[in-house]
């Protein structure tokens, strides 16, 4: 038989229970008032520690993969480990932007100087390195270097908050961490695709334009950028894409500049991968206006500048995808859209230009595994 008086006492029905229950409630309140932040910090830091451990694994794995790739495929002159470690520690100081006048040229100069430096020093790793291998190693260095930087920054923010016993300091990190981890996981997952030279989701633009360029005469118009001129329905098409099948995005802005100085252009059509919003279908195709190109912003600026100066309308076709899909092996859904996008490009040309006019079509994105 249950004795209900015991329950009554336990749940403060009696006089003695009142004092006991008061203590049970008041003590935690006092503890939370004085030590609440430290307790929250303790709980949150458990999750962040796990994430940092994962980031550390991504960092060390990417470095190991890079060193193994160089040792196995490039027959280096001597042990490349020390040199590669030096590359990974290289940092870029962005120009001061208090006076924004001329900032684009400054940023472009800084970024290109870094690229040139890395390219020249990667070349020195091995005497028999092809251009394709060079672009792959450069990309792998970028990935390993980015993962190292992410780990460093997250660890720094966490340790600072812990050292100062400052809970609010850890809040922005806690909020940003899922997004940071999504990017880091995507970068980690992209390594096999870059190593084997497979096409990426981001390569849909070069894939579409590359097929249009097949069996046509090609020339290198700007650094790592190919151009082919074809005729379509009494219109002149200038097809531009990064020079494949190496892992590069080329310099479409410089290419456009060169084309515009020699020919009157009536329209620009850009084909690129675009980040999909949550809830949007992956591999869905959308058309729009404006320059569809990612990156640090200097290329987009240059293309927009050329378009404004020459009064050229800029149209774009994008294939929506997630961060992971964009930098890992192309999914079947994205690959299946290539023919559809190509027919939309031809449709767009007919809709927006007249016979005798000239159009520049740019396949934007990394051209790994996609020749022309």
């Amino acid at each position, binding site marked *: 038989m249950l004795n209900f008086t015991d329950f009554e006492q336990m749940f403060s029905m009696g006089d003695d229970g009142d004092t006991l229950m008061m203590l049970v409630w008041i003590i935690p309140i006092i503890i939370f008032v004085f030590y609440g932040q430290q307790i929250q910090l303790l709980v949150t830091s458990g999750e962040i520690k796990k994430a940092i451990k994962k980031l550390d694994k991504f960092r060390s794995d990417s470095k190991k993969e890079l060193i193994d790739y160089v040792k196995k495929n490039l027959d280096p002159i001597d042990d490349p480990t020390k040199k590669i470690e030096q590359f990974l520690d290289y940092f870029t100081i962005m120009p001061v932007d208090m006076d924004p006048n001329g900032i684009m040229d400054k940023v472009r100069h800084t970024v290109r100087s870094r690229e040139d430096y890395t390219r020249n020093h990667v070349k020195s790793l091995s005497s028999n390195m092809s251009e394709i291998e060079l672009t792959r190693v450069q990309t792998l260095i970028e990935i390993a270097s980015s993962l190292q930087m992410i780990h460093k920054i997250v660890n720094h923010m966490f340790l600072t908050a812990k050292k100062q016993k400052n809970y609010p300091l850890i809040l922005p990190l806690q909020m940003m961490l899922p997004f940071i981890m999504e990017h880091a996981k995507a970068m980690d997952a992209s390594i096999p695709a870059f190593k*084997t*030279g*497979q*096409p990426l989701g981001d390569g849909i633009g070069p*894939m579409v334009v*590359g*097929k249009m360029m*097949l069996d046509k005469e090609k020339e290198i118009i700007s650094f790592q950028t190919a151009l082919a001129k074809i005729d379509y329905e009494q219109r002149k098409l200038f097809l531009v894409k990064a020079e*494949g*099948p190496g892992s590069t995005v080329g310099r479409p802005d410089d290419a456009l500049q060169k084309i515009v100085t020699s020919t009157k252009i009536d329209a620009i059509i850009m084909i690129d991968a675009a980040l999909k919003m949550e809830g949007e279908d992956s591999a869905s195709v959308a058309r729009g206006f404006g320059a569809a190109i990612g990156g640090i912003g200097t290329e987009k600026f240059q293309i927009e500048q050329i378009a404004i100066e020459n009064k050229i309308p800029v149209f774009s076709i994008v294939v929506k995808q997630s961060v992971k899909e964009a930098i*890992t*092996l*192309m*999914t*079947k859904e*994205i*690959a*299946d859209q*290539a023919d559809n996008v190509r027919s939309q490009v031809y449709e767009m040309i007919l809709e927006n230009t007249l016979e005798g006019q000239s159009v520049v079509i740019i396949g934007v994105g990394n051209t790994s*595994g*996609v*020749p022309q």
Partner: protein
Amino acid sequence: MIFSKEKTTLAYTIEKCSKCEKFHKRDFSEGDILFAISSKCTFCNGITTIDKIFGEILER
């Protein structure tokens, strides 16, 4: 995660015959690049080119 399935991405190459226009799906092998001449068509002995390279996720 006890109940989450392990995901593996398998890479495939799709070859298209220029003569009979039939498609053939095979495992990706290193060195495969898009639009490259691949092998002889198993149906008509024509030349196949690589039409697509993509990954499919396998859950186990």
